[in-house]
């Protein structure tokens, strides 16, 4: 048992901790757990005073995190002064218990691992939530003016119970001018400009890494995976070329070099998921990240854009009647007979089918604008208050969120009906004949294509698409 003495303690970390055997040794340092298992202590291999000063600045920044942010960012909470009297450079974070947490890599590295997760009750909707959690942690860092600089699937821990995500390894943050990059990153997630040495890690390269991680989480493959060997004699040089100057999106419309063999074949038939299974808004962000922005960092979507778009995608899911898996309902594919479950390939969409509604944002003087956001609502599904509130984006969890309506299937007329569950009166113009109706509390409206529903001043507007 050794005694680790600490300084710059924040958030109730004691002045000293007891440690025993190393829990893990990595390239940068050795990790120990405190005897009470509450903290993880990293002792760096290289004992440099510059690293100590660097860490002192990072703990200073951590003091400004909100309690909520501190939950998903595993920030250094104290610094090591010495171990048993021997001066050491190191830092302390809270220990994330494994289980229930596991690295992101363990749940999505291959389609097979994903299928195993599906068998134990995890659904693709959970992966969408995980992707949103990943985006949230990066958005908070980037929004405060720093970059993580080493985003990859080993640096995110996922709670298998509730899909919560925690970002670790925050001891190498980059704040331009103040905290220089410490590492370049990991092949597969590094931006091409960093791989070729044209730039050091920054917020723009974080955007690339984040996009690669999100797509990996949703499609169970690295969408930038090279399928061409450029230097068969030198593995490292080959990686540098294929992830760097020759990096190309696997679904690039013109360049098919990296296209997977079974692209578009259902996942449960050993296929590779295409980004075309994603919602239209997610497809557009993917194209901005990997086609327009691959070599133009300023054109890459921000972490904040990913959060919003991933959140909206949760409202566009539908459950396959055959394999019971959730997937983005492909309302953009017409005719309907061409729509299929991307997991099992089932094409027969059986009634009752969902209604697809378009969300419009209120603008000045009674005008509304379409924001490319859709709602897919089926029998028994709820309409939540946040969907109509123009000041809000979808929350991380809808537990406790107020429901303002729900959908019921009318088998006689073979249409969905939206029931008003609140006291506010809604006004609607029916798509069928253009007549205006009032929808009072506990009454309902048929969701016919073209119907416009006005929920009141300042709230979002819904138009039934199909």
């Amino acid at each position, binding site marked *: 048992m050794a*005694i680790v*003495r600490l*300084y710059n303690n924040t958030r109730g970390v004691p*002045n*000293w901790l007891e440690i025993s055997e190393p829990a893990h040794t990595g390239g940068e340092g050795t990790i120990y757990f405190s005897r009470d298992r509450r903290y993880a202590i990293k002792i760096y291999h290289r004992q440099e005073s510059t690293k100590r000063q660097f860490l002192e*600045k990072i703990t*200073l*920044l951590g003091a*400004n995190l909100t309690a909520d942010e501190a939950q998903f960012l595993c920030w250094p909470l104290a610094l090591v*002064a*010495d171990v048993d*009297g*021997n*001066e050491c450079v190191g830092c302390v974070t809270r220990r994330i218990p494994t289980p229930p947490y596991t690295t992101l890599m363990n749940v999505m590295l291959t389609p097979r691992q994903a299928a195993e997760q599906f068998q134990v009750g995890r659904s693709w909707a959970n992966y969408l939530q995980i992707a949103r959690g990943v985006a949230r942690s990066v958005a908070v860092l980037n*929004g*405060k*003016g*720093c970059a993580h600089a080493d985003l990859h699937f080993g640096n995110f821990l996922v709670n298998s119970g509730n899909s919560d995500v925690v970002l670790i390894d925050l001891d190498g943050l980059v*704040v*331009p*001018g*103040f*905290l220089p990059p410490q590492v370049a990153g990991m092949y597969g997630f590094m931006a091409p400009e960093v791989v070729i040495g044209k730039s050091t890690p920054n917020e723009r390269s974080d955007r690339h890494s984040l996009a690669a991680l999100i797509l990996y989480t949703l499609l169970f493959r690295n969408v930038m995976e090279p399928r061409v060997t450029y230097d068969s004699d030198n593995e490292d040089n080959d990686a540098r070329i294929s992830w760097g100057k020759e990096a190309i999106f696997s679904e690039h419309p013109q360049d098919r070099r990296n296209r997977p063999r079974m692209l578009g074949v259902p996942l449960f038939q050993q296929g590779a998921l295409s980004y075309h299974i994603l919602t239209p808004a997610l497809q557009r962000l993917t194209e901005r990240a990997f086609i327009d922005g691959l070599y133009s960092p300023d054109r890459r979507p921000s972490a904040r854009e990913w959060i919003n778009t991933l959140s909206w995608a949760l409202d566009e899911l539908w459950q396959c009647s055959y394999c019971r898996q959730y997937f983005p309902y492909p309302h953009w594919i017409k005719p309907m007979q061409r729509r299929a479950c991307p997991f099992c390939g089932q094409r027969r969409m059986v009634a009752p089918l969902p209604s697809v509604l378009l969300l419009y944002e209120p603008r000045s003087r009674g005008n509304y604008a379409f924001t490319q956001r859709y709602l897919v609502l089926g029998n028994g599904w709820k309409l939540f208050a946040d969907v109509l509130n123009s000041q809000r984006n979808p929350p991380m969890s809808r537990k406790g969120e107020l429901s303002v309506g729900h959908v019921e299937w009318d088998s006689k007329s073979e249409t969905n009906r939206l029931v008003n569950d609140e006291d506010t009166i809604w006004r609607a113009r029916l798509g069928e004949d253009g007549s205006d109706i009032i929808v009072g509390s506990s009454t309902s409206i048929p969701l016919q294509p073209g119907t416009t529903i006005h929920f009141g001043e300042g709230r979002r507007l819904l138009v039934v698409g199909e």
Partner: protein
Amino acid sequence: MNNQLAEEKLNRLLPALSPLAKCIGARIVPEEHVLEEILRSIDVAPEEWAIEELVFWTKILQKASTAATDDEKAAIAVELQNRGILEYPAILAIDAAIPPPLIVVPRSINFGSLKPGEGANATLKVRGKLVKAIVRNNRLKATSLNRGSENSLVKVQLLAGSAGESLQDNILLQGERGEVKVPVAAQWEKEPPRLQHCPRCKRKSLFWNRYNKKFECLNLNCKVEGPSLDKLARP
């Protein structure tokens, strides 16, 4: 000059924040030629808009040197954020703009393992105006020399401890602006067994005299004694 810069101009100017803050932290008054030099170092032409913005940042950052509380620092950070600078660069700029309260060498004292009843001494070199050196542990004494001047010495005296005792504490050095904690560690060896084998005669006759704090071999043919096993000798 209250309007925020356009994003493109701000992004070009942001690399100047760190050298400007360090300049203020080093008590250098950033006059116009200094600002021009900073701008040239980040490949921005010293145009009027850029100089004006740096003057604005300078005024804000200069308040940092007199900020005594975290709330005051937070208020200065907000002022920088109102100029479009994000939270973390703003916080680090303020940190860099505050002259360090005290620089202490060494940063910690470790007296290591001591013999029971033994004490020790150490000296701290302090740069910056030292007001007071505070110790709360009755095994420690700290005496400051040349207090009030820019460079001072603090004599640290560790009083004798008993066998098996350990000490983990801090010396608090209070400066004019802020304070520094210097961790201090020491431990005293555990008391040896009362009777053990004598390394000289090899008999189990070596007695530890806890009152005189020395070993004494009771074998009349040996009779060695000494404060430790490696310092045994005939009297």
